């Protein structure tokens, strides 16, 4: 949801004449919304500007974002950052749905709907 939020803000700022670049890790959400410039960092959600504590990586990614602003010539410019997270386990593990948690998810949904109904 954060990726959609900043994508909508980027579109608004760009329309006001401010050049924007989104640095994010949910490629489909950003590209579906449609933004002028996007640096895709293929990491688990949370650290799109580089791994925690890795100042060199963070600087490289932010530098790339600035370069993309300088060099882009058309909207929907996506550049994939070359950095790698190092493992791929997170890809399937995040928001996983399976027999191991199906009952728990259904129960969590019931609690959430009850909370929403009470808040109305």
């Amino acid at each position, binding site marked *: *949801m*954060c*990726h*959609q*939020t*900043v*994508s*909508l*803000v*980027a*579109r*608004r*700022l*760009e329309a*006001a004449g*401010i*050049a*924007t*670049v989104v*640095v*994010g890790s*949910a*490629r*489909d959400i950003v590209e*579906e*919304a*449609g933004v*002028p410039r996007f640096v*895709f960092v293929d990491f*688990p*959600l*949370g*650290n*799109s*500007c580089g*791994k*925690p*504590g890795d*100042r060199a990586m*963070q*600087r490289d990614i*932010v*530098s790339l974002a*600035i370069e993309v*602003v*300088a060099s882009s010539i*058309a909207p*929907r410019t996506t550049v994939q950052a070359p950095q790698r997270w190092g493992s*791929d386990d*997170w*890809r399937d*593990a*995040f*928001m996983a749905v399976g027999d191991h948690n199906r009952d728990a*998810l*259904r129960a969590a*949904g*019931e609690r*959430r709907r009850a*909370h929403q109904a009470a808040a109305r």
Partner: protein
Amino acid sequence: MSDRPDRQLEHRSHVSYIDKSREYYQAQGFEQAYRWAAFDEVPFTRLSKPVSECNVAVVTTSFLHHHDSYFGAPATDKVVYHHRVADVPDRMFTDDLSWDKQATHTDDTESFLPLSALRALADDGVIGSLNDRFFGVPTEYSQRRTGLDADQVAEWCEHDGVDIAVLVPL
């Protein structure tokens, strides 16, 4: 350059969060799938000067203080804000947002709020300056409400003379 023969066996080039979230909320019993924002037209502004002369601002979805949230939804009492870059807390509040809490953490704010990195680029003359304040936007399911927040951020950026905005979601 090494190629990636393993890639499509397990994963395509990136995770589809739209697919993942649809399956997840279906499993929770929500029948109506969320309609993600989708536009055909995309605005585009060409830079009118070199980046070395540009004032750069950051837009984040993290917040300065704790906000209560329930059942995995973003907190509902958050309000669009601005804050001085010279006065950034050691930690930002991200607990209510849907980042990957199993795989990583957000204890290092520079991993999602790149103020020091941009200050270093300003010191080196790569960019003109880091804007005196950064901007925070609540994460909303309502695209209409986000539109109002975007209007506010645009107003602040215009007031500050921002040339480039770097937007980083969690």
